[in-house]
């Protein structure tokens, strides 16, 4: 066992820290969030140049990293509340292509994604599906050699900036059946595809997508027809672990801000950090962040396990911890900041909002507790 970072990993961490320091001071982030697209071309170009867009992929998959390197980057991105669409593009989209795409798909998309020339979005959620990935009513029907896609997809992050959208559609089987799902790669400018764009609570961008008889060729299928569920399930598990790393970064930042605040804010003639009730709460924040970091590291180390159940349990376990710790640290930070904590003015509320949204992405704490429990009982 060895839990220390290699020299290369340390360098990556340093570079990411530098990026966040240079580009994501809180006032800068506010400006980035207010731009049309909600992220900056120059930041994206820099991420590409530093090779970060290939970090979620291993060398065997054509990239330069793996789960630990992804964890390192995402943690720093969490500290800065970075807005560039790294998760949908490099972690999820790139990951699915690398693991399930055809050689032709990889050739046309993967390299240009890593060069920063293509962005992705992933459309799996539907209005009724809640956290059930198999609850897909979006239809793909055979049309000549290809398919015609019709239906609605919701809360699709980065859809407005994406060049390609990966869509989960039902090609056979009944509602909520895992079999019968197919993943399609669709040109974001395809005819018949309309978007309703909006910002999210945490200053990201997402869209509702309506597909009205969007035609795609047979070569748009990623993986096998009717066989997308395991691809998507694995992609979500990997996205969860990356998201957990982002959350640990958020927690470190929000805890640091709170610690600083209670050391400096004076009431009753002393810094409020002199009051035991706040000291103990701060200790609980610290402990929660430690637990979150531990579970994230464990999940990052287990995510490549050949046994899919090990991967599933690790992802769900980490997500439960992140939900719990994120809520505790977020709510506590706001409370200890008093009125200032609920203003838009300080960064604290922005970390709190991001931590809250992280809990409800890809299944909340309750969902993953149930999933973990079922898996653990079965094994």
């Amino acid at each position, binding site marked *: 066992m060895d839990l220390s970072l290699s020299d290369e990993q340390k360098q990556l961490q340093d570079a990411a820290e530098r990026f966040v320091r240079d580009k994501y001071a809180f006032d800068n982030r506010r400006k980035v969030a207010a731009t049309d697209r909600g992220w900056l071309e120059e930041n994206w170009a820099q991420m590409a140049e530093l090779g970060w867009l290939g970090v979620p992929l291993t060398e065997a998959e054509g990239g330069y990293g793996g789960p630990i390197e992804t964890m390192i980057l995402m943690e720093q991105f969490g500290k800065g509340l970075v807005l560039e669409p790294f998760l949908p593009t490099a972690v999820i989209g790139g990951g699915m292509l690398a693991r399930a795409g055809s050689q032709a798909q990889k050739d046309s998309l993967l390299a240009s994604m890593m060069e920063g020339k293509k962005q992705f979005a992933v459309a799996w959620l539907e209005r009724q599906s809640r956290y059930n990935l198999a609850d897909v009513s979006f239809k793909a029907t055979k049309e000549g050699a290809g398919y015609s896609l019709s239906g609605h997809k919701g809360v699709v992050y980065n859809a407005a900036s994406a060049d390609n959208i990966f869509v989960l559609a039902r090609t056979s089987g009944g509602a909520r059946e895992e079999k019968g799902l197919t993943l399609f790669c669709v040109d974001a400018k395809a005819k018949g595809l309309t978007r*309703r764009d*909006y910002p999210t609570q*945490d200053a990201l961008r997402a869209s509702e997508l309506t597909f009205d008889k969007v035609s795609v060729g047979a070569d748009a299928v990623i993986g096998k027809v009717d066989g997308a569920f395991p691809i998507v399930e694995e992609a979500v598990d990997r996205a969860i672990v990356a998201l957990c790393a982002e959350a640990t970064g958020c927690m470190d930042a929000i805890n640091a801000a709170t610690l600083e605040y209670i050391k400096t804010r004076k*009431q009753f003639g002393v810094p*409020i950090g002199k009051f035991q009730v706040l000291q103990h709460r701060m200790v609980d924040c610290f402990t929660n962040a430690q637990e979150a970091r531990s579970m994230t590291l464990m999940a990052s180390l287990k995510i490549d396990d050949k046994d899919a159940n090990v991967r599933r349990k690790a992802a769900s376990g980490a997500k439960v911890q992140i939900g719990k710790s994120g809520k505790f640290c977020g709510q506590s930070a706001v409370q200890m900041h008093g009125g200032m904590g609920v203003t838009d003015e300080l960064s604290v*509320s922005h970390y709190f909002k991001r931590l809250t949204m992280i809990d*409800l992405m890809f299944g909340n704490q309750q969902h993953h507790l149930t999933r973990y429990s079922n898996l653990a009982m079965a094994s």
Partner: protein
Amino acid sequence: MDLALKPEHKAFADEVRAFTKKNLSPATIAKTFSGRHYDKDDHVRWQRALGKQGWLAYTWPKKYGGPGWDVTQRFLFENVLAEEGAPRIIPFGVKMVGPVIYTFGNDEQKERFLPGIRSSEVSWCQGYSEPGAGSDLANLRTRAVLDGDHYVVNGQKTWTSYAHWGDWIFCLVRTNPDAKAQEGISFLLIDMKTPGITVRPIIMLDGAHAVNDVFLDNVRGPVANRIGKEGEGWTCAKFLLANERLGIAEVPGSKRGVRALREIAGDVSASDPSFNEKIADVDLQVQALEMSELRALATMALGGAPGPEASSLKLRGSEIQQRLAELAMEAVGEYAAPYQPGMLFQDTNETPVGPDHAPPAAPRYFNMRKTTIYGGSSEIQKNIVSKMVLGL
């Protein structure tokens, strides 16, 4: 003892309901049930209707123009209003400064200020907190210096709800900087139109604007508008805070919250059976709080003032409001993510992204974090109970 209502009380509830249905605007009701924010007009129109009926100052004794209701009537009134979707009565006039004026003010002040509060013709806001005086309220620095028959006031108040709507502000000001902290404070009413007052909005984490900074720069306020003696403002302040804490348990609103949750629970409970039990849990907390509040009110009806037990009610009441908001967000799932300010702050015909109850879910959860901070933070309330009730 008997929980059942007497026939006259049932008739009273029917009367309140009929009045509410007749006078509360459908647009305001729609805002309540869709979670959109009210504008000033929603509040003022409704409060003036209540005022005309003689019901706005429903907690006041008859002597000062209140209806002289008993505890049961007040309870029914608050519940019926909440059930029908009425906005909360803005407390700064009728619940806060009004009772201070009729308890500590002179006859001239009562005559001058009480009618406008009862009718809601005059809007009030609260000048208590300052940047350096939050939990430690007695540390306030806003200075009032006597100049003939006026005070000249300089300083800054903060977290002032509805200062941008307010006609008058009641302020705690320091009239004697040499006295012990609590002893140098006076309670002063100031016309918001007085030169030297600047209101700056504070935007909350959900994008809402309700609170403000209020800057006072050489503001001249007549000494005649001081309530009570100079240096005895802290007595008024404490009296008012105890009233405030009683009012912000928000039981009727939370009961409405439980009902609203049950209406949307079906979306969740199909895939997550634990959700219904989470609602049941908070439902029971609301019941315990309601019974505790009724017990406190019954004690008060026998002549007691709201005591430190009001702190316990505020503590639990705020936690319950937060929990309800949290569950409403949990119910929406990933559709809580779209930020839709148009659906929160404007009248719009747009259809929301996601279910109808999605747009306010996360913003409300964020915003409700304030409830364990304002009106005395939970930490302060616990200190009060610990010292005043338990003697620790």
